[in-house]
C-alpha cells in the first residue's frame, strides 16, 4: 500500500492503494467515479479514456503509481446532467448514444480534439481523432454528426463562425 496524491477534475485526491493498480480501477473502485468504463482492458477500445494533463489516454494502461502530482480529467469533470458540456448536449440532441457504454470515453476524446480546432472538422478528421474509440451500437454516423454540431456551437461561441 502506498499513499498517492494527484488531481482529478480539479480537486486533489489522496488514495491509499497498491501502486501498480490501474488508474481506471482507482477511479471506479477508490474514487467512485464510474463514468470511465472498462471493456478490453488493453488499450484497444477507448471506453476508459481520460485526459492526463489535457491529453487523451487510456486509463486502463496507466498505473496510479506513475501519477504523483499529475492532473486527470474524467467525463464527470467535463460535465454532469446539471451542467452539460456543449459536446454532451450535442450528443443528446443528435441521439448519438445508445447503450452508452462507449459514450464517456468518446466525450473525453472529443473534448481533447475540439480544444484545438479553428473550423468545423471534416468526417475524416473526426474518424482519425476517434480511431481509438469503438462503439458497438450507433454505427458512428450520429457520433460524427454530434461532434460536428458541437464544433459549430463552440466556434460560434468563440465568434469564429457566424451564428445561423
Amino acid at each position, binding site marked *: 500500500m502506498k499513499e498517492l496524491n494527484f488531481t482529478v477534475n480539479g480537486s486533489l485526491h489522496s488514495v491509499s492503494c497498491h501502486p*501498480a493498480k490501474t488508474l481506471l480501477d482507482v477511479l471506479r473502485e477508490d474514487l467512485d467515479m464510474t463514468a470511465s468504463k472498462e471493456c478490453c482492458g488493453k488499450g484497444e477500445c477507448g471506453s476508459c479514456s481520460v485526459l492526463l494533463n489535457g491529453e487523451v489516454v487510456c486509463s486502463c494502461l496507466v*498505473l496510479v503509481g506513475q501519477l504523483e502530482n499529475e492532473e486527470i480529467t474524467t467525463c464527470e469533470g467535463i460535465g454532469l446532467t446539471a451542467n452539460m458540456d456543449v459536446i454532451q448536449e450535442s450528443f443528446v440532441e443528435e441521439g448519438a448514444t445508445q447503450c452508452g457504454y462507449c459514450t464517456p470515453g468518446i466525450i473525453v476524446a472529443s473534448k481533447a480534439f475540439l480544444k484545438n480546432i479553428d473550423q468545423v472538422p471534416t468526417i475524416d478528421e473526426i474518424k482519425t481523432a476517434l480511431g481509438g474509440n469503438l462503439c458497438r451500437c450507433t454505427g458512428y454516423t450520429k457520433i460524427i454528426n454530434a461532434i460536428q454540431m458541437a464544433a459549430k456551437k463552440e466556434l460560434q461561441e468563440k465568434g469564429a463562425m457566424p451564428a445561423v
Partner: protein
Amino acid sequence: MLISEMDIITPQTVNDCLLILSKKETEHRIIAGGTDAVVRMKEGKWLPSTWINIKGLKELRYIKEINGTIHIGPLITHTDIIHSSLLQKKANILVEAAREVGAIQMQNMGTIGGNIGTASPAGDTIPALYVLNAAVELQSLHNKRLIPINLLFTGPGRTVIKPNEMITNIIIQPQTENEIGIFQKLGPRKAQSISIVNVAIMLSMAKDRECLGGKIAFGSVAPTIIRAKKCEALLPLNPLTDDIIENIAKIAWKEVMPITDGRATAEYRRDMASALLERGLYRLMRRWERK
C-alpha cells in the same frame, strides 16, 4: 509476483535511474508510457517486483539538431514526433511511421524509447529508424555505448540492451534535399492495430525517375526488422518506371521470412510485402514528380 505486491519508484534524474538499474537486489523493469508494459503485466508476461517509472524524466524528452544529425530523447512520444517541425522537414518518414502507431491515446502515451525497448518485429518506428541510419545510445552508471540500430535487435522482444543499461538518446541522419521517404503499413484495422507487414523506403534521387540508390526496411516479416538488399540492389540500375517498380516488388518475397500467427498467414505476409513495396515506390514517384 502479484500485481498487488509490485512497487513503483520514480527516479528524479537519469543518474538516479542508472543507479537503481545498477543494483541487483530487486528484479526491476523500466516503464515509460506503459502502453506495452501494462498490457504485458496484465497478460502475466512482465511481472517485475519494481517498476522504474521514467515517464516524467524531462531530461530525456528532447528533439535537437547537433552537427548535422538529429538527437531524439527516448521519452519523446509519438505525438511529439508528429508535431515536430524539425522532423517534419528532415525526417518525414519517422513522422509518417509515428502517425501509424495505434490511435491518439497510444500516440500520447507511447514513446519512441518504449517502441525500441519492446523490440517487436512489428514496431512501426523501427523500419523508419533503419532507413534513417539510426544509432541508439545505451547508458549504464559507468559506461556509454552507441549501437547501430541494425545491431540492436537479436530476435522478437530481444535486444543487446543489458539489465543495467537504458536508452538515453537516438541519433538519426536527416534526409537530404534529394532524398525522399515513405512509410507504408498494413494492419487489420485502420487505427490501434499492430502491423501485419510494414515497410520504410528511402530513395536518393537524381533527375526525373533516375534513382541513385536507396534503402528498404521491412517489419513483421522476420524475427527482426530486415533490409531488403536484393530489392535495394535493383534501385539504381534503371529509371524507376512503373514496370521496373513492379519487377522490384516481385522479388520482395525472396527477402522475407514471415511466420503464420494470429494476425496473418506467412503466405499472405509474403504477398503483402510485395504489394506494399510496389505501392510505396509508386506513391514515392508520384510525390517526387510533384515536388
